[in-house]
């Protein structure tokens, strides 16, 4: 076992799930929320030449997806180090 204890393994997994829930909530809100469910309401606002809802559906959601993945990578690397389960490091 790479973890110090069973308790540590549990904590690691719980932290992982918590991170997933946060990131996937943002994922859902930006794409399904802003891009589809609330698109008409958001379209009353403008971002330069874009209607805001339209912009989220065709541009904003994709940028957010990118940020989400890189935040995930960063946070998980920190978590791996904290629990000593990073590969090729003792």
């Amino acid at each position, binding site marked *: 076992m790479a973890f110090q204890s069973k308790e540590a393994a549990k904590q690691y*997994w719980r932290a992982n799930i918590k991170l997933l829930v946060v*990131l996937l909530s943002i994922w859902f809100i930006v*794409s399904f929320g802003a891009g589809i469910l609330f698109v008409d309401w958001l379209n009353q606002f403008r971002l330069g030449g874009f209607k805001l809802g*339209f912009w989220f*559906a*065709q541009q904003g959601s*994709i940028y957010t*997806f990118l940020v989400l993945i890189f935040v995930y990578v960063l946070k998980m690397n920190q978590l791996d180090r904290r629990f000593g389960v990073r590969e090729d490091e003792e």
Partner: protein
Amino acid sequence: MDQQTLIYLAVGSTFALYIAIAIWSRAGSTGDFYVAGGGVHPIANGMATAADWMSAASFISMAGLIAFLGYDGSVYLMGWTGGYVLLALCLAPYLRKFGKFTVPDFIGDRYYSQMARTVAVICAIFVSFTYVAGQMRGVGVVFSRFLEVEVTTGVLIGMGVVFFYAVLGGMKGITYTQVAQYCVMIFAYTVPAIYISLLITGNPIPQLGFGDTLADGSGVHLLDRLDGLTRELGFTAFTDGKKSTIDMFCITAALMVGTAGLPHVIVRFFTVPKVRDARKSAGWALLFIAILYTTAPAVGAFARLNMINTINGPEAQGVPREDMPEWVETWETTGLIQWKDDNGDGRLFYSNDSRNEMTIDPDIMVLANPEIAELPNWVIALVAAGGLAAALSTAAGLLLVISTSISHDLLKRNLMPRISEKHELLAARLAAAAAIGLAGYLGINPPGFVAEVVAFAFGLAAASFFPAIIMGIFFKPMNQWGAVAGMLSGLVFTAGYILVFKGVFFEPLLPNTREYWLLGISPEGIGFVGMLLNLAVALTVRQFTPDAPPHVQDMVENIRFPKGSSGPGGFHDELH
């Protein structure tokens, strides 16, 4: 140099490059052949994944679809990128830690059942063939338009090139070729986009340009002009949609989940050295994909505006036949654009009411775009090479999944467990060769249903693989009965629903219109409902059957964190 010479030069030199890379990166072992020895750098892997993922459909068709669908086209943009978030967060790192070669490997081992493995193999092969036939067709179309050869000759040349590097190099050859293909493809996509953005809005960045004001001095925003024009001509305004909210929701969800469940995408994350590389690799892949996917809606908006303006003319009365733009003439010969002078005034006119005289295939928009905007010849040559790169890279990735499914999942893990590595590698090469032959045949003699079955590929991946893999990782007690029952019910429901409306092999049973759809959900979006059904059935069946045995639960525990292999020894642990 004239245009034809430039096109030959562009296509010829990129092909030579792909072949040179294939020779340099030949595969020596099954590890090389299946997962490139598990040693690909995450950035290179990200590029290869992006090239693998972005097919002829992304390169050639998507911007055209958006040009005609406007806001409704967002389902493809969000659907085909949002899936990478699911991949990166919920699948890639765990499957990498699992450390085998294929998706059926995971399903078969996790659910300790040959039945589950077999269902997964059949799905993987079916999904991949559907896809690859479409790619070969794309190769044929590009060849016939730009190289002025028969579709058949075009497909044969394409087959030859793919054969050479897929059979010789396996995953290793394919991966490094795809890196090159990505560069060709993205260059070919963005250069004309930047040109056109500058022409129309004066803004060199297409992503910003299509939200900018027009360069004609009117000070009107491009999208507002487009909304106005489309409304005047009887269409739905460009930035408004026709699709119902529930349908938009379901299609987007089905495409996202389907993306995350496609075997040729998932297998990519088996090729990097470490778990943390798998996470990173998904991020890089999405970055490289996003460059094209954020440009595509801009290209779509520019194309729609340019098209309306060149056909209807500055006075919006339609241009006379003799002043017809050159691109209409070139593409008329392919039959993909048609003009019928209904009112006999000798003028072209494009609208959504009785005045309309044009039939335009959305697939031509990206390829014709440089001609519509009257860009230099070398840009057109570049687009031809880019379209081929997109089609070939995806075809190669899919062929590998097919050959791996046959040699590894079917022979090695099922029928002939004692087969030696050398023979397995030979079987993989033979299977790849046979698959290329069949794909080429389908490309030359496309069954009428190639376009129809795209909904199938995503729907089936969403309704079968995705839930099974997710539960396999996040729900330890899930057992073989639940998983198999879930996959089968998801599959049967989704396939049944699509068949009822699309027919494919027979006349559709019901007209494919909103009144007949379940809750207003089109066949494109039904995979999402299939996925929910899969989950519900699997969870219910598990309630009444014994939990997964302890050694399987230990294996699941083991794939949940990057270091340490207490479970079944993965391939990569032996390699490094």
